[in-house]
């Protein structure tokens, strides 16, 4: 296996919005940064969202400039398809082993033209589209991916050679091997983001087998301009949905599935999606079944009240069960908490607000303290929320707990400040008495 040594001031694990923001804030201070991203593109979850609450601006329009700024920054390097496999202390810093998966092509020569993709005969389900759309066995992950470079999914390749014939730069290299790098880093920031709890955790909600029951990230793709269908349709037959139901806390605040905490973003994205659905489908009726609406951030409550005024229906109810009728319409059974009646209602499409869970458990690689909820625990949460139990290792974004985008971005800035201060070696503030203290009057002018 090819091995390579790289030196960097800070290693950031995760190239989503939190990792990118931390990288930019460190790079702008003059520190060298290496971002290690497990997917084929940076951008994380945010780049694949439709519009974002509460301002309803286009997610890609906000995320792309940060991706481009990081990619073009002379202090920032990016390694995709790469994950750390081992971390060891080395002097004041760390030696991190990173395994980089092959793209099976020379990324420097690929121009992202996608001719290989059009030539490939293998049709597969596209993970980036929430498994709703299609991709080929060789493909550019999505339109605004950075880097704009294809990757070959060797597990599904039938070795026909069509991609190589189509490639204008002959950059395809079928025999590429994984590479191992040793990163010598002064500090580490973990910004590994989120996954959603799997759809099959609750048997009473169909156990993940109901085709017209989706999770929030899939609906983000349906609403995005380049979504898998190009418009909002349901997966069972392509019907334009007339009624859509959201089930809040479907996988949160629930001890029975091991996610007792609030996932913090589901209320707001459900309200946002309801508004976007109403915009995209003028005739649609949207129902939100909820326990508490948690619209707590800046502008959130106002956003919620707007949604109510728009006619989105909020039903205070706990949904007991979801089944399916003969047209594959999901049928909800719930107790309306205001009327006390048990009701049944069929919808064209149902969206489950699945719980937010950490995308990466660091412990096997990096033994930072993790809380009972699986998120990285802060060593001194009230005043220093980004410090972990290991000096020199910081965390940001959803890695430390569910968070919306503004909170993640702010925390990323904080992690950058912590890492920078640590690298400057300024954390050994001794008790200084008045006598030792240099004159510290402010600069006086005039």
């Amino acid at each position, binding site marked *: 296996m090819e091995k390579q040594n790289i030196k960097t001031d800070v290693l950031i694990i995760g190239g989503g919005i939190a990792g990118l923001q931390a990288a930019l804030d460190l790079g702008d201070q003059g520190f060298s940064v290496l971002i290690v991203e497990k997917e084929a593109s940076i951008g994380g979850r945010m780049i694949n969202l439709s519009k974002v609450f509460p301002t309803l601006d286009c997610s890609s329009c906000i995320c792309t400039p940060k991706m481009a700024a990081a990619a073009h920054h002379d202090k920032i390097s990016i390694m995709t398809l790469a994950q750390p496999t081992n971390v060891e202390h080395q002097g004041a810093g760390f030696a991190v082993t990173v395994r980089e998966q092959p793209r099976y092509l020379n990324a420097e020569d690929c121009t992202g033209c996608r001719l290989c993709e059009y030539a490939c005969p293998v049709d597969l389900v596209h993970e980036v589209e929430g498994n709703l759309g299609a991709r080929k066995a060789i493909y550019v992950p999505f339109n605004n991916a950075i880097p704009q470079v294809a990757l070959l999914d060797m597990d599904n390749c039938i070795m026909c050679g069509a991609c190589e014939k189509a490639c204008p730069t002959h950059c395809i290299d079928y025999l590429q091997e994984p590479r191992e790098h040793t990163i010598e880093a002064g500090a580490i920031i973990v910004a590994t983001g989120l996954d959603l709890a799997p759809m099959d955790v609750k048997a009473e909600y169909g156990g993940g087998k109901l085709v017209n029951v989706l999770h929030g990230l899939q609906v983000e793709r349906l609403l995005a301009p380049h979504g898998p269908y190009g418009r909002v349709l349901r997966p069972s037959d392509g019907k334009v949905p007339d009624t859509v139901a959201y089930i809040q806390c479907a996988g949160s605040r629930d001890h029975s599935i091991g996610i007792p905490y609030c996932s913090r973003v589901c209320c707001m994205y459900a309200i946002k999606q309801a508004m976007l659905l109403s915009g995209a489908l003028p005739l649609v009726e949207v129902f939100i079944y909820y326990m508490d609406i948690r619209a707590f951030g800046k502008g959130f409550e*106002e956003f919620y009240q707007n949604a109510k005024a728009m006619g989105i229906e909020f039903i205070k109810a706990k949904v007991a069960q979801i089944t399916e009728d003969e047209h594959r319409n999901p049928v909800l059974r719930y107790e309306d908490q205001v009327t006390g009646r048990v009701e049944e209602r069929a919808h064209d499409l149902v969206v489950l607000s699945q719980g937010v869970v950490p995308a990466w458990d660091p412990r096997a690689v990096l033994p930072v303290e993790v809380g009972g909820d699986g998120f990285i625990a802060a060593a001194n949460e009230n005043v220093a929320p980004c410090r972990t139990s290991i000096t020199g290792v910081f965390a940001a974004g959803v890695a430390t707990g569910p968070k919306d985008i503004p909170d993640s971005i702010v925390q990323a800035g904080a992690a950058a400040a912590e890492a920078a201060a640590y690298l400057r070696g300024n954390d050994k503030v001794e008790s200084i008495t008045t006598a030792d203290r240099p004159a510290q009057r402010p600069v006086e002018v005039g």
Partner: protein
Amino acid sequence: MTEDKSQHNGEGADAENIRVGVYICHCGGNISDTVEIERVVEAAAKMPSVVVARRNMFMCSDPGQSMIEEDIRTERLNRVVVGACSPSLHELTFRGVLTRAGINPYLFENANLREQVSWVSKGDPTGATDKAIRLVGAAVAKARLLRPLEPIRLEATPRVVVIGGGLTGLRCALDLARLDLDVTLLEEQPFLGGHLAELGQVYPSDKPAREILGELIREVSAHPRICILTSAEVIEASGCVGTFLLKVRAAGEMETQCFSAERIAADLASRAHGPNGDHHNDGAGTTELEIQAGMAVLATGFDHYTPSQGEYGYEEHPGIITLPALIRELESGGLGSGPPALNGRPINSIGFIHCVGSRELDGVHDQNGKTELNHYCSRVCCTSALWAAKQLQARYPDLQIYDFHKDIRTYGHGHEDIYEDTAKSGVIFCRFADTAPPKVTVTESDPPLMISLKDELTFNEEIDVPVDLVVLVTGMVPHAIDNLVDMLKLPRSADRFLQEVHPKLRPVEMAVNGVLIAGCCQAPLDSVESAAAASAAAAKAAALLGKGYIEREPFVARVDQALCNGTSACVEECKYNQAVSLVETAGGARKAQVNAAICCGCGMCAAVCPTGAIQVDGWRLDQFDAMIDALLVNY
């Protein structure tokens, strides 16, 4: 308008011997399969000032880049046009080539022949080739008028003024100092610690607030880079990013010494008695001084919402108090160590009413003499109320607690556990619709207070709950900083909190360049979130001031003083305070002048200038006119 043709065709450029090189990329067929590259190169060769026109399979490749570099040297090129993919991919690559070859990188222009020609014109190769030629023509026309530009460098004082000495200000000051910047921390009160000092144990860490703060204040006051001014207020502000000048009035002597542990403890202990508690006396007299700073961070925090008289019975009975008042009683032991009592009245039951002064709705809530209703959620009060309930339960197990809410918003780390714990140990929860807030009445009976509402948790039953104590769970309002807002021209959002530039792109920056915000002056936040915002602001300041100068892209407005008539049209049009202003010139005429530190380069000024004297560098109107002329040329 009389049109000066020569201006558009770049006569000015002819003074210099313009030599343009044009390079067309095949992109391995991505462009050349649709666009006839040979024809584009032929046409380009005929364009004015073009001395070299070449093509390459991949212009971005090493051989492609070397070809340009070589030509710049041997053909003495001073402008370069590359027709290839979108500038978003390789504009910086090619600017780098120009730099390496020894010419100014801003003398490069791109023609987008892939994303905007070949990939969108597969069915019309002839039309695509024609379009490519016209776009290359437009790029050449612009290139001829390009001028060398230099990044803007502004002097910057490596000092930051942090306004506000609560948790946010302290955290921010400490981080700035840790990032090797000098800090002046201004606090209007005689003591540090802000509202956090009023609290006892805080969630989620369960640590005493005073311990957390004490440690932080000790570090801040001990740090050699931080100067603390208490009882301080800003009375005048001028300057701009890099060189702000703040005139500050501070009571007593300036703090130049490290706070002693005793002093910190005494200050914090006094804070537990409320905002008007005893405090350390700084001595008589005031001093005024001017502070020069590169940036300012606002950490001015919040005030507790004060209900108006009669709002849920407030001030109509001693048993109706706010949550902060209850917390104060809890901290000072005011409820007693035996069975709870307040001011001699035994307390057997308490009712918490949420969303007092938060989440108010037009047509539902009285304005109660306020100028505006608070439509926003105050974010922290649900958890704070339940946290207080949990502590009450622990101290007084026989106490019956009721909680009246619209939604329970225990969103954060550990918050849901607090909710569950209180529910398990007997708090009774009732829910009211946001259009039907509960009513509080003072009765003659015992207990003396009655809370009436329709309870959504018992199928909208009308219930009357008698209690001994009503706790109004009040939220936050922004701390009054009208003076600062006026002096620094700070934008506020509809909720009257300070408004960031963009909640996601630039969450801790204000539209006024060099002014940052953190903590509850921006929106209600808890201590964890405030601390994060404080550190984020510190990182931003360090990025800008760390080098000792501020560097910006050169695309800002510039005034041609010879053309300027001093009409001030640009000054009136500009939305950025003092980005452009009129100054007296040596000849006594008044002419416009741009402050490159503030100008954002939008060009709003350029459109209203009667003589075209003010233009945005890199995007000048004559360049656009030349491009349009070129688009219309048939080659």
